[in-house]
């Protein structure tokens, strides 16, 4: 059997299959973890029920990954045969019937419409002949790309997420899937692949930004220097996809795997070919069950279609992939710790060198790439290094993917060219701070990163610029903090995280982070004196200089950056015993405003520690010494009569 024709055949079949889908009515529901949590499951059930009730037949119901507009979930899209896909936002189950009924009758429930997808977001890529009939009623609907949230985005890594059905390989193939792998295996030598990636300027998207092509070259060359007794011809090598997205506040990798699992497989297979590996692992957090499930489905499909296994595309290249689940240890995102974890050991890091590219899994050359890096690889090989390096800045080529969350209006996934400013991301794409609050800072890079104040909001995002500010690019978490975030509390929060996640192997991290946490707790509870700040800074610098691995070395960043940009908040906590954001318990009080209070007693009922005294006759007061600052009374008061005061 000629395997190369075989590939053309299945691609043709996939395109045909997708075309047929377009000739039918479809309802598509955003079914990522966030979507499900927002209520997609209930919406899906309702859709099935409603279609049955309205006797609408011949509708394909599909689930897709997260398109990245998380604040508008659950999203339900309707695509009538040969017409554009129209997306409805924040759909509640009780609204499903009216939306479907109207849409199929040629009307739109306009106030629920999110956008309309244009041809590029079609499930078939590069089909020139494909044209939509755009019903008149659709005129004036914003297209997906013209939404304020999308206008400045450039989606390369996220190209398929939210567009395709991640559990259907045909969708991936119809959008050009596995073309890059085919080209690689049939037309390029491993050296050519490495050169292409090198000249594209792609840097690792996991956080440190090491040039991907250079890493691959190390592993590629490793066989030349390794001659042991048992390596008769070639040294065994491994490739690993690092999907241990442990940074709290980051979910790019989860969304990518949930929405486009085949591109991870394709990227990893190309990496394996480039360095000469025959075995790959995808190391993924156990906290991501849906991503694991979709990856398992995708792997099965890839094997069935001979994109994995022996003699891929009729060549002599063999490659297999195994999923290895983590078990809840943040440090396993560090590559040497990850290697230990894959081998079934405690996930403790070790000093480098030797780097994994020389000595990794079972002592063999191993490359470890982040999910986003691998997903970008196929596009680079198809469109060329020149195209990719034309995007981005001198320092960092291509695009950056962020998970924009926190106190921001449009939270979700954002992919922008490197060099886009923080202001553009937070205010133009993110729509600014939600709830009319004031912007205070943006936190990037998770527990290894730092907080950037408003005065530096015009900083472009790339590896060098963010590092200069004392933060890091990190893997892509971007958390917007408003005036109601206490920066000292945020530093304390990260230190709590690190102190509990420190693996305990090296003293600076094991002991130092606990001591730093104690100091921060003293400050946030108002028990510190001013000289603690010098000690805290000193300790942070020592940890930074002496910790064994990346986790420890970057752990003090949240402290150092908040000390640098928000020192006045530390001083207020210490000297005036005041938390201006009214977050730190004990440094502010809850007070009932008698002018607004209607003596309903909700505050007393809701208080879990009985700190609210009084009665409906006499009115109520809060005994702040008993209060645990759970905010229950504040949130539940129907008249907003409870105020926080310093």
């Amino acid at each position, binding site marked *: 059997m000629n395997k190369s024709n075989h590939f053309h055949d299945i691609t043709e079949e996939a395109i045909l299959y997708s075309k047929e889908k377009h000739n039918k009515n479809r309802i598509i529901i955003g079914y990522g973890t966030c979507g499900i949590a927002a209520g997609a499951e209930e919406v899906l059930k309702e859709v099935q029920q409603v279609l049955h009730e309205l006797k609408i037949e011949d509708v394909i119901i599909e689930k897709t990954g997260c398109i990245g507009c998380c604040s508008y979930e659950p999203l339900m899209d309707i695509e009538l045969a040969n017409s554009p896909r129209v997306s409805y936002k924040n759909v509640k189950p009780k609204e499903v019937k009216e939306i479907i009924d109207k849409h199929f009758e040629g009307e739109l429930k306009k106030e629920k419409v999110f956008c309309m997808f244009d041809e590029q977001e079609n499930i078939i890529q590069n089909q020139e002949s494909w044209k939509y009939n755009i019903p008149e009623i659709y005129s004036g609907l914003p297209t997906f790309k013209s939404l304020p949230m999308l206008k400045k985005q450039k989606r390369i890594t996220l190209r398929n997420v939210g567009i395709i059905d991640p559990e259907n390989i045909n969708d991936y193939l119809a959008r050009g899937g596995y073309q890059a792998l085919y080209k690689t295996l049939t037309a390029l030598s491993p050296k050519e692949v490495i050169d292409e990636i090198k000249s594209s300027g792609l840097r690792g998207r996991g956080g440190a930004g090491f040039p991907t092509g250079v890493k691959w070259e190390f592993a590629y060359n490793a066989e030349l220097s390794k001659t042991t007794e048992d390596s008769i011809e070639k040294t065994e090598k491994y490739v690993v996809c690092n999907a241990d997205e442990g940074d709290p506040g980051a*979910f790019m990798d989860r969304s990518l795997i949930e929405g486009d699992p085949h591109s991870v497989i394709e990227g990893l297979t190309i990496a394996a070919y480039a360095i000469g590996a025959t075995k790959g692992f995808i190391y993924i957090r156990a906290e991501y069950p849906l991503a694991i499930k979709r990856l398992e489905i995708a792997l099965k499909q890839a094997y069935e279609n001979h994109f994995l296994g022996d003699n891929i595309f009729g060549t002599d290249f063999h490659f297999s992939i195994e999923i290895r689940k983590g078990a809840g240890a943040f440090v396993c995102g560090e590559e040497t710790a990850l290697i230990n974890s894959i081998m079934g050991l*405690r996930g403790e890091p070790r000093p480098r060198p030797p780097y994994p590219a020389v000595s990794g899994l079972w002592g063999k050359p191993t490359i470890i790439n982040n999910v986003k890096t691998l997903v970008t690889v196929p596009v680079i090989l198809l469109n060329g290094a020149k195209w990719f390096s034309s995007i981005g800045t001198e320092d960092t080529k291509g695009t950056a993917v962020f998970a924009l969350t926190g106190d921001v209006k449009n939270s979700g996934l954002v992919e922008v060219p490197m060099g886009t400013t923080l202001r553009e991301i937070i205010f133009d794409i993110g729509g600014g701070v939600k709830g009319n609050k004031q912007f205070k800072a943006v936190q990037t890079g998770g527990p290894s990163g730092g907080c950037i104040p408003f005065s530096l909001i015009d900083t472009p995002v790339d590896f060098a610029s963010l590092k200069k500010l004392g933060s890091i690019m990190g893997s892509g978490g971007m958390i917007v903090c408003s005036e109601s975030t206490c920066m000292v509390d945020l530093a304390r929060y990260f230190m709590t*995280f690190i102190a509990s996640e420190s693996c305990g192997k090296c003293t600076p991290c094991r002991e130092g982070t606990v001591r730093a946490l104690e100091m921060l707790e003293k400050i946030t509870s108002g028990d510190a004196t001013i000289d603690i700040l010098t000690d805290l800074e000193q300790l942070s610098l020592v940890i930074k200089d002496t910790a064994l691995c990346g986790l420890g070395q970057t752990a003090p960043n949240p402290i150092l950056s908040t000390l640098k940009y928000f020192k006045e908040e530390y001083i207020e906590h210490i000297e005036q015993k005041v938390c201006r954001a009214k977050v730190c318990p004990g440094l502010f009080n809850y007070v009932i405003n008698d002018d607004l209070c209607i003596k309903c007693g909700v505050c007393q009922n809701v208080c879990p520690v009985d700190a609210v005294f009084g009665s409906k006759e006499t009115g109520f007061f809060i005994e702040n010494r008993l209060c645990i600052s759970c905010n229950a009374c504040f949130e539940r008061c129907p008249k907003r009569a409870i105020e926080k005061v310093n």
Partner: protein
Amino acid sequence: MNVDFDIDSILARYNFDSSALIQILSDVQDKYGYLPREVLEDISQKIEVSLSKMWGVISFYALFKLKPPAKYNITVCQGTACHVSGAKRNLEYIESKLNLKAGEHSPDGKYSLETVACIGSCALAPTIVINGKVYGRNTVKTIDKLLSRLEEGEKK
């Protein structure tokens, strides 16, 4: 306790390979809800990893549990996005409502309360997971609703 501890099918999935220890343990936990000692002893012999080494691995990873799960396992996400939207307050509220500290089981085996570093549903912060189902955008009000729903489920 006399449960059928046939774990050979799990071990066979990984060809009795000791490097798959973490996978084996997590499959066992999926099956039983925790890691029963009898099973661990059995695995130890069959894949030739000593119990002490296994203990080293189990105690290192946060997800492994040596106690049977409660009927309702409530996990309060403490990710950064959740934190800035009030996850700590929510946790304290649940702690005082259930009279449990994070990491504890209620004596009647009904509730266990845990925290998790981040479940990656940050856009729906603050999130709470109850028996694997994610609930987003929580306030004291939604928590009250969730908890009373669990109580009602008890009565039925």
